[in-house]
């Protein structure tokens, strides 16, 4: 089995609710804890979780960025350096922590994620907005890259001076294709959801089995315990 296939298989073992819970715990740890060591230990645990699900390269990349930001911040505070902004480094290291479980959430197949979230006491429409936003975020990044490439090919991004001289034109050239492409994707997604019967009022069944298993229980207990420890430290 290929590595991507193995990763996919591993991710299918975990429930969407578990990863969502892990994400919420990570956000709370990142923004509520004042102890840097606890923060770093929690990030390292997330690296191990990503490695367990086969996302070794991505996990290591995130952890290296985290360490670089921490090291940069420490050096800047010690020597009174103000460039790059310490605030920016601080935001980076605080955002890396929730970004790691969010990445795992992105990798869960949308059908499985929808089936898991359906079990939560959430209004169906709010749940749909959440799922679409989660699925759409990587698409937006990809689409933005495509639009940027097209602008470069057509000479709209020739130099920084050109961009500064005509900011509104540059904004227009970037925004208009972005909106068109996004609306096209949104329409295709809604058509796909409608033909699969999302608007039907009856109870929905899924191809994926959505059940909290031993792995989910362990991950949830671990994240709850880590959250309590990090806040109390």
């Amino acid at each position, binding site marked *: 089995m290929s590595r991507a296939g193995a990763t996919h298989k591993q991710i299918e073992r975990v429930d969407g609710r578990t990863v969502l819970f892990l994400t919420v715990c990570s*956000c709370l740890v*990142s923004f509520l804890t004042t102890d840097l060591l606890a923060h770093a230990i929690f990030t390292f645990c997330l690296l191990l979780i990503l490695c367990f699900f086969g996302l070794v390269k991505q996990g290591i990349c995130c952890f290296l960025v985290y360490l670089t930001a921490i090291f940069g911040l420490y050096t800047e505070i010690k020597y009174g350096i103000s460039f790059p*902004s310490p605030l920016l480094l601080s935001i980076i290291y605080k955002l890396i922590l929730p970004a790691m479980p969010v990445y795992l959430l992105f990798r869960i197949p949308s059908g499985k994620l929808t089936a898991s979230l359906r079990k939560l006491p959430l209004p169906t429409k709010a749940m749909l*907005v959440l799922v*679409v936003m989660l699925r759409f975020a990587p698409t937006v990044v990809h689409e933005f890259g495509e639009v940027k490439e097209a602008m470069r090919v057509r000479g709209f991004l020739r130099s920084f001076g050109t961009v500064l001289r005509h900011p509104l034109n540059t904004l227009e050239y970037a925004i*208009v294709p*972005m909106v068109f492409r996004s*609306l096209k994707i949104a*329409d295709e997604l*809604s058509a796909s959801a409608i033909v699969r019967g999302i608007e039907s009022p009856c109870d929905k069944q899924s191809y994926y089995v959505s059940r909290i298993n031993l792995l989910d229980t362990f991950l949830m207990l671990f994240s709850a315990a880590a959250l309590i420890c990090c806040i109390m430290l």
Partner: protein
Amino acid sequence: MESAVQNQKKKFGIRDIMTIAAMMVICFSIMMVVGSFTLPFPLVYLYGAAGIDGFICAIFFLVASYRVNKHGLIFAWAGIYGLIQGVMGYMFLLPYFLVVGALAEASMIGKDTYRNPIRTRIGWTINCVGNFVGCAVPLWWAWDSYSAMAVESGFTAETLNMQISMVTSPALMLLGAAITAILTILGTLFGQRLLRKHFKKSGIVG
């Protein structure tokens, strides 16, 4: 039968939900980029970031507004923003953003107001000024713990002093709100121009 069809027309359909979600994702991505770029410049970050967000994101709000044209859109927009802030650790901001959303929604009462340039301008301006004031809420709520956390996080004394003077002076708060409102109004004017020039012609918005 007719009233059931009318009721169905008032509710958000799947296409509306997808449109709102797509536009909101782009807006949040832009807000993150704007935040990262303005952070090294405390003055711009404190007084201008909300306005810049309001300027650029106005077009996405207008596209959603003209396309969906249903009440509850701006309330949902502000509510989801509040929810994201809540997940980030500022749970007390959720009720604040719900109030902002309710105020903005109240400015949209009436028929077809989501396709009215002036009403959409007012609604979006209320939402963005609410976002600007929302940045000060954590500071008013718990200044001591905020300043302790800020110093540990690498905030410079200059930024902190600037923040203190901003949130404690009504004149400076008004100045920030005015800058945000002006940029937001300019953004909606620019957005209306793009709507007329591109989106209405192609028929993707009403």
